[in-house]
């Protein structure tokens, strides 16, 4: 057979493309359900991790149901617009943050740890190479950090990627996001050895300056959109101050 004819080449290419497209569509279709389940389970593990709960070797689904019985959706004014737990879980924070502030629907997960309420907020920002995201949990005073979790898509291993380590995340515990005048100022991520004026700060990653800065901006912007919600503190919380 003459494989150099134009018609043969064109038919060959067309058939190849159709076959490969069918194959990929088939694989994707078969595995879709399992992948979605994996992504959801992973999200639950990430949220639990922001409460300093390790899911290694445990049933993350059961732990999630045990610790996080409630989740709500709020708007930028801090008003609750839905208390549907599943709906709040499925909010895509990246999509919400691309909308104007007034139109955003922001998820808040209400956890109960040892009888105390913890508020978990969703974070989303940009690192050096790609998106970074995470969850941060606050005590009942909506000011003191209880735990945090950060993850990245493609930061440099050993440098920016260190934000995903517990070592870095544990630095945030007990830091406060409001200053002495009870105004939201976020938590700064600074170069090791430096300080931030008028707010709490943690040491960034040596050699991961841009990623560390990305975390700093992410905290400011992501927590900032919850500012009104964080301002509504129950009386009990205020008296503890």
């Amino acid at each position, binding site marked *: *057979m003459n*494989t*150099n004819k134009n018609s*043969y*080449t064109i038919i*060959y*290419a067309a058939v*190849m*493309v159709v076959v*490969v497209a069918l*194959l*990929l569509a088939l*694989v*994707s279709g078969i*595995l879709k359900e*399992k*992948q979605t389940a*994996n*992504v959801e*389970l*992973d999200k639950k593990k990430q949220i639990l991790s922001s409460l300093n709960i390790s899911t290694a070797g445990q049933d993350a689904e059961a732990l999630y149901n045990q610790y996080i019985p409630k989740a709500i959706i709020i708007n930028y004014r801090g008003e609750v617009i839905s208390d549907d737990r599943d709906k709040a879980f499925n909010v895509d924070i990246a999509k919400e943050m691309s909308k104007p502030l007034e139109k955003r629907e922001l998820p808040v997960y209400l956890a109960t740890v040892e009888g105390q309420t913890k508020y978990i907020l969703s974070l989303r920002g940009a690192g050096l190479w*790609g998106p970074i995201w995470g969850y941060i949990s606050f005590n009942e005073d909506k000011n003191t950090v209880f735990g945090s979790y950060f993850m990245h*898509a*493609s930061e*440099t*291993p*050993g*440098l920016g990627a260190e934000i995903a380590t517990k070592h870095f995340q544990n630095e945030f515990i007990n830091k406060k996001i409001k200053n002495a005048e009870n105004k939201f100022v976020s938590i700064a991520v600074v170069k090791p050895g430096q300080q931030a004026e008028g707010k709490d700060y943690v040491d960034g990653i*040596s*050699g991961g300056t841009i990623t560390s800065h990305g975390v700093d901006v992410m905290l400011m912007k992501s927590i900032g959109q919850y500012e009104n919600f964080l301002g509504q503190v129950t009386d009990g919380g205020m008296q503890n101050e």
Partner: protein
Amino acid sequence: MSKLLSAKSKQVLLGPLSKNNPIMVQVLGICSALAVTAKLEPALVMGLSVTIIVALSNVIISLLRNTIPNRIRIIVQLVVVAALVTVVSEFLKAFAYDVSVQLSVYIGLIITNCILMGRLEAFAMGNKPWESFLDGIGNGIGYAWILAAVAFVRELLGSGTLLNYRIIPQSFYDAGYVNNGMMMMPPMALILVACLIWIHRAANKDLQEK
């Protein structure tokens, strides 16, 4: 068994491990050797994934070799590799989610690994499926062990760990030992690969140019 591994097959399988190593002798696939060797674990998974993909794509191209139109053969090879990489990546997402998260973009980047195109073009286009399969396995492992060797040195000296287990004891750090930050930088991978090539050539005189 003797029929399965004739003298030629053995050469095809074992040659790439040393005398014909894709990284040390052909200097292919250097780009990913720099990117994934800061830690040992991603380097091992990367080596395994490349081995599987280069073996399978070699077999597929070898089966099709007499039908592929000459003028679009590179495109055909690329489509086969890209399809396989996508399938492997989908399977990882479904059955080994944690690993796929760890490797993130690197799995997709296997498509651009020069070893794949090199083996398809140089070997699979002109050899039978079984030999092509062995050639793929040989080259994949030849690539994987160099990656593992480089990652071993970089993780041990750069982070003081291996597979994320602490190897260098805390007492060393207390006594003033510091991790070598240079090891985390991509250029160090290049220098380590160069050292490997140096040792390899010193041991194999027939590889040295006159």
